């Protein structure tokens, strides 16, 4: 069905595009340049394709194990970057060169992986939770980036402040995901969970 959706959407789009372009301007009646009945026929086919794509997409998302796998990746990467940042933040003093290396070696990849898997949040919890989680995550990432800049320039007080702020935002990110999971479990309890 999904392939049919793609076929109809692209077929409809191409047909409508073709009719939009099939004639040069008709001088005495410009609006008749585009054969509108044919054009809207193409658009209608495209809309049927879009509807099929969206409905089958939703079903696929519900079934796919890969969504679960992506969500696990997301949790794992968050845990990894959090443990590095919490570790750095708990230190009494910070050596800029060491902070720089730690961010490059231990934070950059988990942050990128979390971002790559972020769509799993939309599918699991919806757009609103996604926006809340990404607001906190993006703030955490920005403070980690700022910490990197401060470390490159040697500003140790700023390094400490940024690490603390990144830690706060990472904790909030984790808390929001945990709360969303609890809410989802309450709304859609798994078989036997009610017993």
């Amino acid at each position, binding site marked *: 069905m999904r392939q049919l959706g793609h076929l109809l959407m692209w077929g409809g789009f191409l047909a409508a595009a073709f009719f*939009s372009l*099939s004639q040069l301007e008709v001088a005495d009646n410009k609006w008749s340049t585009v054969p509108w009945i044919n054009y809207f026929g193409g658009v209608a086919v495209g809309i049927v394709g879009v509807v099929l794509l969206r409905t089958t997409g939703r079903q696929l998302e519900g079934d796919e194990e890969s969504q679960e796998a992506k969500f696990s990746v997301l949790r794992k990467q968050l845990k990894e970057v959090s443990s590095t940042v919490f570790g750095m933040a708990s230190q009494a003093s910070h050596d800029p060169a060491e902070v720089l290396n730690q961010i490059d070696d231990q934070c950059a990849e988990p942050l990128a992986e979390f971002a790559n898997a972020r769509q799993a949040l939309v599918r699991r919890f919806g757009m609103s939770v996604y926006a*809340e989680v990404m607001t906190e995550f993006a703030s955490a990432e920005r403070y980690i980036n700022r910490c990197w800049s401060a470390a490159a320039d040697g500003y140790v007080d700023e390094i400490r402040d940024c690490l603390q702020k990144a830690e706060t935002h990472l904790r909030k990110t984790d808390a929001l995901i945990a709360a969303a999971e609890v809410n989802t479990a309450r709304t859609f309890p798994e078989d036997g969970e009610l017993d």
Partner: protein
Amino acid sequence: MSDRPPTTDTSDSNSGTIPIRTGPYPEFTWTAVLVGWAIGALIAVSIGYAALILGFAIEGSELAAILGWGILRGVLRRSSIVENNINQTIASAVNGASSGIMFSVPALFILSRREGLEAVADFNVPLMILACITGCVLGLAFVIPLRKQMIDFDRLAYPGGIAVATILKSPGAGVRKAVLLLGGAVLSGVIHLLVLQLMGEDPNWIANDQFEWLPEMLNITLYLSVMTVGVGFLSGKGGFWFGAGGFLCYFLLSPLLSFYGSDGVATMVDNPDEMRGVLYKPLGIGMLVGAAIGGIIAAFPLIASAMKAMHNAGKNNDSDSKNDEMPIGLLYAAIGIGALALVWIAFASVDGMTLGRAISMALLGTLWVWVAGVVVAECIGRTNWSPLSGMTLIAVTILIVIAKGGLNTVETITSSMLVGAAICLAISQASDMMLDLKSGYLVGGIPRRQQLAQFIGAWLGPIIVISLMILLNSQYEIGSDRLPAPQAQALASVTEGILDNNIPTYRYTAGAGLGLLLAISGLGGIGVLIALGFYMPFAIALTYTIGNVLRIASDKVFGSKFSHEVGIPIAAGLIVGEALVGVGNAFYKVLFAKPDETETAWLGIHFLSGVFG
């Protein structure tokens, strides 16, 4: 804003490479502001002047970052990456006026040379400057919530922003990355010099010239620009649909039209440039608008969440967010005041203007700034190209349609171009700001400070660039062989076309439907990207696709870490090298190939003596 110097400890860090400093990390300082204004003014004058001769403006962010790096770190011995980020934000905000104004305002001088339209050159200069500044404020206000949506939530690539961030971060990125960045820049600069030397101003390699058996309609032409390859690499697979849009036009629709299109179209397919100008580009403009409207509808939950987050940040007095985000009240105030100012500007623009017509022009203009802001923010985020001219064209069309109902031709042109210039500036500032905010994100800049910096820089550009334009027009005549102003010529021709009802509205409308269809498909960003593929020359899309393919292959074969560690610095270097050689070439042409150098210098002295009495 403070310039309190940090305390520098003589003892280095353990690894012995980074001196330890205590105290506040300099970011929004007077030094950054003053250097930003100075660099911005220099770039705006240079690029604005070059744009009147060459017909295109050059993105100034990379240049501003490099000059800032040299002045702040090299000359003033400053030591803050985020301070240079503020400096380049201000400088590029000042320069943002050059592309916006040079595309729109000179059209008035060009139109004034037509019989019966002489009076359009007598526009109110202070009002024009005020209109442009108002446009800047509106453009910046509208993109404030878009930052959250497009950078935090959608995580668009903004290749130019990555390039700037790579420059800004180079002091701490280590020797290896610096070498890669520099290597990319040198390679790109040398190749661009060779291309300029061998190909001149038309750097396109047309496959059909070498392989005559290839059908001309396929338009296999490469834009010989390694910068474009770099941009494609930085965009990665996210930019794939841009190239796909071009392939749809020339590999699928053109062959179909050659068989089944009307006689006129079937004959035209063998001339790809004409096909683009007459058919694909107008359809692409409509698609961009439809895709933007569809995108706004589809992304409404995200936009609402972004606004909600900003409201919450404003309410929570203790949160970091309050310090990080621009107050939401300021955003509403800027839009309200901007819209009111635009009403007054439209009303005061010509004698025959009625209040009702002024309100209609200003409100529709403001609404258009929002729609066009979304379009350019997404286009520049996904591909690094902004359809500024197409969006301005639609704005001018809307404004002329409203104005010409009750005004004479001169008044219609003057009022529409005045409000149109404001909208053009708004769109130009919006795209520049989003790009700067991305580099800010990557170096850890505070968004609120960057947004303030953009406001601080944006007002200066219109004053400088409009003064320069009037000075040049009085000396050389804009539109003459000396200052051909090709972009403004195009807008002037289109304006005449609109006045004569000679615009392909039907094609725009059909395109809007197609853009809307793709936007609601749920395939993220596909509508705007395919529309851009229709709108832009296929040569650029093809070269850009090479970069996309290289990134996908690099991620697959060597892993994403390799792409980040090696590929991105090289790609950023490719952008920087070609941009710098492009600026150098523009200077060379301006000084040695067009107006006489001595004459230019005298002109400057005359102008300054006039200003200072």
